[in-house]
């Protein structure tokens, strides 16, 4: 039997190439284009080589200085978010009921924050945390704690972190819950017969079985928190001062506020590469831990 070569399948793939070209590749190329040019308005562009990149990556320059400040701020924010939301999400998932009508109730309640538009979330917390009319701000102030998220950088950070935890912990919890639900009953029964404690069951059955969903949860929460824009922009606008100016906010200030297209384009590309690199590291580390341990033992 001779194998018939048929390349018609390419025609089915072509539309995808076309869409990806227009939606991703072309816009990205315009950014690359801007990043190597300078403009003085009037649509006049001048070749600038890699000067923007050099300036951006040199902390002693004005551009590099603000870039690295925003970068460390964003990394710190993502780290705090992961450290709080992942353990909290796991704890919530473990506490959720397994069966009965309360399951549906829990799922709906948990999904609610995820369904709210991001700028609405920002607005809700902006009002909620105000010292004069916001329930939270008013109560905290009347408890004798001096709290003002528009004036105090620490207060602003706490407010944004709490807001993000409120908004996104459900996602982690729902993913973990799905992971937990997929564990066959026999595992729990075997663990009971083996006399395993609650902690041992968590360590030896639940956590390993949640690995995959946790990987997804960590990746999603990292990417989202590292790219966070809308909520802090609505809540604090990046202030007080630059205390909550994360990379994305800084980028918008640079591109649309100051209209420094070249610098902003260079910053976008570096920002993008950082996200890709960190996600790659997370992914590789989390998928390889098992394989490596096996290799060492073999």
């Amino acid at each position, binding site marked *: 039997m001779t194998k018939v070569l048929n390349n018609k399948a390419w025609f089915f793939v072509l539309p995808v190439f076309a869409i990806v070209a227009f939606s991703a590749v072309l816009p990205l190329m315009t950014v690359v284009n801007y990043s190597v040019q300078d403009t003085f308005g009037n649509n006049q562009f001048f070749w600038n080589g890699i000067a923007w990149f050099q300036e951006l990556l040199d902390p002693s320059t004005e551009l590099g200085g603000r870039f690295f400040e925003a970068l460390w701020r964003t990394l710190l924010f993502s780290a705090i978010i992961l450290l709080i939301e992942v353990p909290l999400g796991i704890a919530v998932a473990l506490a959720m009921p397994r069966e009965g009508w309360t399951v549906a109730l829990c799922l709906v309640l948990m999904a609610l924050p995820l369904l709210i538009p991001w700028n609405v979330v920002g607005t809700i917390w902006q009002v909620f945390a105000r010292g004069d009319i916001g329930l939270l701000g008013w109560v905290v102030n009347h408890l004798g704690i001096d709290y003002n998220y528009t004036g105090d950088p620490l207060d602003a950070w706490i407010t944004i972190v709490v807001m993000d935890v409120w908004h996104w912990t459900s996602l982690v919890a729902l993913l973990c819950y799905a992971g937990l639900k997929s564990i*066959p009953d*026999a*595992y729990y*029964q*075997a663990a*009971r*017969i*083996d*006399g*395993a*404690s609650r902690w*041992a069951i968590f360590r*030896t*059955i639940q956590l*390993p*079985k949640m690995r995959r969903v946790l990987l997804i949860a960590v990746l999603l929460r990292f990417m989202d928190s590292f790219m966070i824009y809308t909520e802090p922009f609505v809540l604090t606008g990046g202030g007080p001062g630059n205390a909550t100016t994360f990379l994305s906010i800084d980028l918008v200030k640079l591109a649309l506020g100051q209209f420094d297209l070249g610098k902003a384009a260079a910053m976008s590309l570096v920002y993008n590469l950082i996200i890709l690199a960190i996600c790659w590291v997370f992914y590789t580390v989390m998928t390889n831990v*098992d394989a490596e*341990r*096996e290799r060492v*033992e*073999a």
Partner: protein
Amino acid sequence: MARIALDHLAHSYKISPQSPDEFALREINHRWDQGGAYALLGPSGCGKTTLLNIISGLVRPTRGRVRFDDLDVTDLPTEARNIAQVFQFPVVYDTMTVRENLAFPLKNRHVPRDRTAQRVEEIARLLDLTRVLDRKASNLTADMKQKISLGRGLVRPDVAAILFDEPLTVIDPHLKWQLRSTLKEIHRALDITMIYVTHDQTEALTFADKVVVMHDGAVVQTGTPDELFERPAHTFVGHFIGSPGMNILPCRVEGATAFIGNEVIALQRLYRTLADGERVELGIRPEFVRLGPKGSGLPVRVRRIDDIGRARIARVEMGERSLVASVPDGISIEGSEAALALDLRQVHIYANGHLVSGEPLGGYGA
């Protein structure tokens, strides 16, 4: 080491069961002797697993008591009973090595390290797991994993009984036989009560000294494989055990004579008068029904003759009834007309499904 007794045990998954239909397990009284190899045989959904889970303490029975020797364990949690259970799908702790898996039950019970290590080595040798002891349990084949599950049960020195819940379901056919022999060897070596749940009669009959047949939430017969074959106490047992199953024919019985349609069969036992309302049936295994040429017995029409390897079996029709008969070597049937000869010693009479024991006639079989 213990004798396990089930006393008026019944279970329903409903909170307040009303009718007997709502019971997954109808009332059961049973005793499992220390050191026995038992099989719990029945079709899916007959309550086998429920019964097993009650013994191990994973399910608390609605009614009745479970006793290990003289100790009432009905209210004791699983971990407080000296019972091990192996499940249908192999359960191993993925992140641990085989050695850690085997040591896990002992670690949880705070057995000293050196005792644990020694015990793990012993059990690994018994199960032929020594060479994989330091491998990750998650990367092994299903039969290895099932051995690890079993090993986690055996490793506890105090274990009184091991319960198997269809443990060979996910094992490759050629390894099933091997694993089953391993189980038999361990049973002989360790003097542990084993209760083996299965819906596969071959597995049950080859594994067990005693088979408990369950049907519809109740135990219908307990006996050795031979007893189940030769004297099924219930038409279900006759039908379920043996391949092909027993022929069950509706009939009328008067004294020592059975009437099937227009045919008359002289029985070897005298039966009490069976009431009109009772469903009376005659049962005989295909092995004891021989096909012969026309005129040599009960007239039948042959539908098909199948060669099943060690024997030939015929599917025949007697009046409206379908039967299966064995075809003796050297017999060839021309056309579809033939006759059946019954081995009358192997004929059983059932009323409403249950075996009716008759009085022996004239000294035979007494």
